[in-house]
């Protein structure tokens, strides 16, 4: 049940993300598609949220520190009813509430403005500390990118999170192996990434980031470990599910039209039909 329903939801989100960026003609497709399974598990299974009351006291929080993956998150938020579905087709057009990078002021359901890489984790630590002061037992989630992990501020925040034992903070690294200038390990290697976080006194797991059962299980395990913040490294594929994007070194911010998007969507539908 879990697998079938959530798989269907992930497929919808992936297709919608392709459609809205394809309609616009350009966008951060690679890093949007690599986090679809994570967003699906968080928003459709794990998070305590209310689309009609995005600021609900004691809710769970999610900071998309790799703010350029906003389009995938917007598809989730629209589907859940945080804002009208029609907004999705305004992505990155003048006056939109859905800009390229996440904006807490403009978009209902966005918990933090991000886009200058490296800043989301610090904010997440602050949110977690505030929840502790207020005595909430909610969870605060954050997703950073693999290229983003090269930003020094992450490691400042890593120390602060561990020092203050923010065990209600669960972070994910979308390790899709690619960044703008090439393969992450060629541009500025971050391996062994799990050892880095472990040495900063974080509780660390590493899993297949496209396997939703594995993501859900890892969250369950993290929630059972107290005294340390949690990092779940997601091994993912940049551009996952779209043949024109997967493995394409230019898939960070890509120009493609709606026809290309529709072909990818059709291929996803065909594959999903085969699976059933």
């Amino acid at each position: 049940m879990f697998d079938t329903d959530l798989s269907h939801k992930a497929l919808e989100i992936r297709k919608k993300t392709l459609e809205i960026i394809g309609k616009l003609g350009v966008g951060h497709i690679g890093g949007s598609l690599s986090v679809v399974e994570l967003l699906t598990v968080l928003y459709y299974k794990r998070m305590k949220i209310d689309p009609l009351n995005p600021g609900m006291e004691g809710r769970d929080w999610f900071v998309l520190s790799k703010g350029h993956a906003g389009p995938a998150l917007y598809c989730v938020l629209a589907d859940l009813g945080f804002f009208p579905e029609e907004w999705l087709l305004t992505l990155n057009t003048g006056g939109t509430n859905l800009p390229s990078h996440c904006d807490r002021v403009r978009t209902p359901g966005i918990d933090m403005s991000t886009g200058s890489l490296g800043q989301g984790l610090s904010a997440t630590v602050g949110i977690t500390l505030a929840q502790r002061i207020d005595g909430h037992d909610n969870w605060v989630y954050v997703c950073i990118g693999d290229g983003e992990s090269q930003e020094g501020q992450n490691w400042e925040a890593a120390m602060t999170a561990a020092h203050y034992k923010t065990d209600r903070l669960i972070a994910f690294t979308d390790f899709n192996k690619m960044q703008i200038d090439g393969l992450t390990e060629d541009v500025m290697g971050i391996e062994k990434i799990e050892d880095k976080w472990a040495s900063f006194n974080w509780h660390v797991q590493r899993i297949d980031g496209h396997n939703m059962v594995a993501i859900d299980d890892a969250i369950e395990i993290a929630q059972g470990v107290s005294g340390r913040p949690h990092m779940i490294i997601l091994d993912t594929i940049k551009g996952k599910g779209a043949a024109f994007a997967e493995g394409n070194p230019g898939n960070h911010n890509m120009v493609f039209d709606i026809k290309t998007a529709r072909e990818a969507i059709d291929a996803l539908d065909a594959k999903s039909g085969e699976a059933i």
Partner: protein
Amino acid sequence: MDMRDVYTETLMELADKDDRIVLLEADLMNATGTRPFKAAYPDRFFDVGVSEADMVGVAAGLSAAGKIPFAASFGCFASRRVYDQFFLSANYAQLNVNLVGTDPGITALFNGGTHMTFEDAGIMRNIPQLRVLEPSDEVSLRKLLPQIAHWPRSVYLRLHRKGGWSFYSEDETFEIGKGKLIREGSDITLASFGMVMLQETLKAADLLEKKGIHADVIDVLTLKPLDRELVLASARKTGLIVSCENHNIYNGLGSAVAEVLAEDGVPARLRRIGCQDKFGEVGKIDYLMETFGLTAAHIVDTAEALIGMKKTA
């Protein structure tokens, strides 16, 4: 009392009434003098170690979740070091992060050029809608801090740390965005920003008075938004204005005054007392005042030169 003690004492009074008040430090708790706050409110005080960028980001997160954070460091770090974090995580995100840059300008003393921030207020002026303040005495600091805390958006507070004085009476009222005309004359306007310069500017006004020159003295208090009407009304009256700042003449008070004068078409001549586009250096206060041209004598000379130009014009 030291301005830093006014800062801590006032925030403790605020914190007692408002449990949203939280403090952050980056290994300068003893310099800022906030240890008593930590002792009184240990759950609302966070020292993040030497990581100012993280401090501002954590403060932004605390604000996003409903707290009212004050985060302090030396002004050089609280501006240059954290500009992008303060810009995006705090200001673009429309959060209430109160960032405190201590030891403005020459008050960095023996920390010297690496720490002597003549540029912090200037770069902060470029952040949209940010309020930039430097209280000029203990009373203005005490009275402005509650307003800063409850202003719904971010503020950059330039804080003189060691030493203090009470210029204003305890019943004086203050408002973010409003300056004070603290002395009235008719011949020239002296506009001052911050504690060091207000003391020198008042001395200069006394010296000028002895020479028969009557000066308007304005204590700006808020650099951004500048109290435009106050400055323009005085400039229209006197036709001559000297800006006095413990900051580079670029992008600080002198620039702000020039902008409003030019935009309004007020025919007033302006001269700018301040750091003349130089890097800081180590020294005692008297040496630094002299070296960077910030003394009452410098202000008097500049004012007299302006008056001389007016007479010959």
